[in-house]
């Protein structure tokens, strides 16, 4: 299993745990913070499920280079770093948006949105050309051999 896949899967497992801890906090009404509801769902759907899908598809889909290097996997690395930075920034900044009027939290939340968007974009650049039927792949191979 390539390193980038292992990182996606382990980050996904950490987010799954964090989302479940948040879920427990949400059930404890005396310490419940409404914004945790949004964080719970995003850690589960983006941090956990989406990262697991991304990690496994980068590993299992055809067309992966066997040589692990940054240049071969640059889009996957950009996706991993930016997506996780984006989610982390959101977890840090979002609770403070309602509690504080300071501009820094708004800026951090905006940066988080941009990071997540670019991260997903990088994943799409990596995976799109690898989603191919047998015929398309054999045509590509023939072209490359010529």
């Amino acid at each position, binding site marked *: 299993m390539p390193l980038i896949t292992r990182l996606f899967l382990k980050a996904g497992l950490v987010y799954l745990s964090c989302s479940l801890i948040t879920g427990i906090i949400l059930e404890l009404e005396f310490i419940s913070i409404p914004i945790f509801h949004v964080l719970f769902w995003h850690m589960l*759907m983006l941090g956990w*499920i*989406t990262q697991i*899908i991304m990690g496994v*598809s980068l590993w*299992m889909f*055809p067309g992966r280079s066997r040589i692990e290097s940054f240049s071969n996997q640059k889009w996957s690395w950009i996706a991993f770093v930016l997506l996780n930075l984006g989610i982390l920034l*959101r977890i840090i*900044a*979002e609770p403070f*948006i309602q509690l504080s009027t300071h501009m820094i*939290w*708004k*800026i951090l*939340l*905006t940066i*988080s*949105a*941009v990071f*997540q*968007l670019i991260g*997903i*974009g990088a994943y*799409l650049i990596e*995976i*799109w050309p690898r*989603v*191919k*039927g*047998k015929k*398309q792949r054999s045509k590509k191979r023939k072209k490359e051999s010529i």
Partner: protein
Amino acid sequence: MPIVSVWMIRMSLLYLASGISVGALLLISKSLHIVSFAWNLLPIHIEFLIFGWIIQFTLGTAYWILPRYLKTKGRGKSFPAILMVVFLNMGILFVVVSELKWDYSFLGLIGRFFQLMAVALFIKLHWTRVVSYARS
């Protein structure tokens, strides 16, 4: 990868791109209050990412990767598989239109029905493909 899986996975990637773009717009709107209409798009963000991305990607990958039929070595008839893709995506689009236009709420019901039909077709196609080779 069979062509049905190629369509489903590519569609799911398009939904991921659209859903995450709407999500980014919502987050920026939350922090900077610059896009007032953005919150009307919240149901679309949810529909695109849950049904369009996660469910469609999972079904498309399962169609490709689950064991083929043991006797015929295929994935079954292609017409129900194509119909499954059409129903699922029509369902998503119908639900999205119903969320955008409140007058068209009946489309939401039709959309969910299409999604149910897609899942029923998926079950029909895959029920006997969920096997253990050791028992055959």
